[in-house]
């Protein structure tokens, strides 16, 4: 298959899977055990790594900004720079990248393995649609957990920035001053922007990884190939969507 045809086929099958899964939404309450299990896997197990990474991203932001801003006497504004960067961009993007690496790869591996070992075929012969029992609970769970991950990424990132700002000699800004500037220059829309982005990224990652897993063909070797493809496509998708969602949100706000 030519690359363009393959991309179009991939988009088509992903949208088809989305429509199919959405059609089973009324069954979600009956599937609450699966939904809760997925919330645990997507949210709880990803939380520690999101927190660690966000702390250091906030810290590095403060360090770099402090170094540059000290040169022209603007280091007191570090709080607003770290706050806005984390809330509008880095919080949701980093949470999405970690989701792609940790959860997306696991979803693709699990579903690809189920496909290769005929578990998906068995579900279909039992008239149990994979879109209903495997895709819908994951999509619902990511919609609930992704904003939580993004908010925690923001908070921990801000905290990381504050710690670095206080204990770096060349910056030496007290947390009170740091958070005061952060509060003064940030509005609710900044955080909301980030949450909308996080929802879009998370939903797209899980949908794409489910689709790649379910469309795996061949033997066990293809499971590894599916995981690689899922992570690469997810990372590209995050950055492409980031541009378009940012543009759309800016357009809406203006």
């Amino acid at each position, binding site marked *: 298959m030519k690359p363009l045809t393959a991309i179009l086929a991939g988009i088509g099958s992903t949208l088809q899977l989305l429509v199919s899964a959405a059609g089973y939404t009324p069954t979600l309450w009956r599937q609450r055990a699966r939904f809760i299990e997925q919330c645990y896997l997507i949210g709880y197990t990803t939380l520690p790594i999101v927190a660690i990474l966000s702390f250091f991203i906030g810290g590095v932001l403060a360090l770099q900004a402090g170094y540059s801003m000290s040169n022209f006497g603007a280091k007191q504004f570090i709080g607003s720079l770290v706050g806005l960067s984390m809330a509008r961009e880095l919080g949701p993007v980093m949470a999405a990248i970690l989701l792609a690496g940790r959860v997306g790869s696991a979803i693709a591996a*699990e579903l690809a*393995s*189920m496909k290769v*070992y*005929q*578990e998906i*075929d*068995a579900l*279909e*012969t*039992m*008239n*149990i649609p994979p879109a209903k*029992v495997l895709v819908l609970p994951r999509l619902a769970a990511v919609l609930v957990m992704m904003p939580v991950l993004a908010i925690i990424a923001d908070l921990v990132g801000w905290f990381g920035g504050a710690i670095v700002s206080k204990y770096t000699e060349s910056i030496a800004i007290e947390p009170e001053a740091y958070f005061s500037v952060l509060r003064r220059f940030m509005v609710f829309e900044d955080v909301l922007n980030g949450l909308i982005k996080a929802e879009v990224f998370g939903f797209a990652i899980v949908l794409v990884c489910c689709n790649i897993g379910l469309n795996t063909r061949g033997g066990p070797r293809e499971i590894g190939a599916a995981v690689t493809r899922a992570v690469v496509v997810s990372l590209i998708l995050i950055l492409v969507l980031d541009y378009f969602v940012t543009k759309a949100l800016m357009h809406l706000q203006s």
Partner: protein
Amino acid sequence: MTCNPTRNPFTHTETAAVGVSIEGLSKSFGRFEVLKNVTFSVAPGEIFVLMGPSGSGKSVLLKHIVGLEQPSAGRVTVAGRDASSEATRAQVRMALVFQSGALFNSLSVYDNLALYPREHQIADEAAIREKVMRALQILSLEGSAHKAPSELSGGMKKRVAIARGLVMEPQLMLYDEPTSELDPVMAATISEIIATLKDEYHVTSIVVSHDRELALGIADRVGILMGGELISLGTPADLRTPADPRVAEFLYPKIDLKNPRFKKLET
């Protein structure tokens, strides 16, 4: 194609038995033609055994019957309905016992069996438990209910897959190599289960197998598939003295130590 009633092994309620019709079925994967103009039908309540060498297209044919593959040409109908339609799967209870078992690795043996009735809300949890335990008992698997599939041997996985099929209370049961990897006693038990499902419950069965004893012992009719073509269709009695030398060679191969087959292949 309908039908004598199928009496359910668990509830003893009656539903219509179903037949299968395959007309001019051809299937190609790329340039490779796996099935070539295959035509036969299976009557409601019949046991049809499909035999043939490895790679002759038997499993692909089974997948067409349950709608997992689309024909390149021809038509497959189950109970008069197009087999590839999702509506057919919703209306006709079909169970396919995969050669590998295809058990859900993330679920215990018990949950593997309970999945179908739970998803389709066929019964309450107590009734599901009764059905599951009965199916496990029939297959001598009572002690494995809470094991994970990864803890089972190949033969046990196959028995669990058959038990999962039984819990579905099928009108049509398809088996892909049900007796491979089983010891002779368990293989005989599986043959007896297939025969009992026909005699007592009128379940239509299509069995893909290399097992000559099973085919000649329980089949109503046997088809031989070679190179994607159905080269023989008849009763077990017909196969005891096959007219076609290819069928005779396949069913009753002679071990010739003086002139071994692999030496023939070398030349």
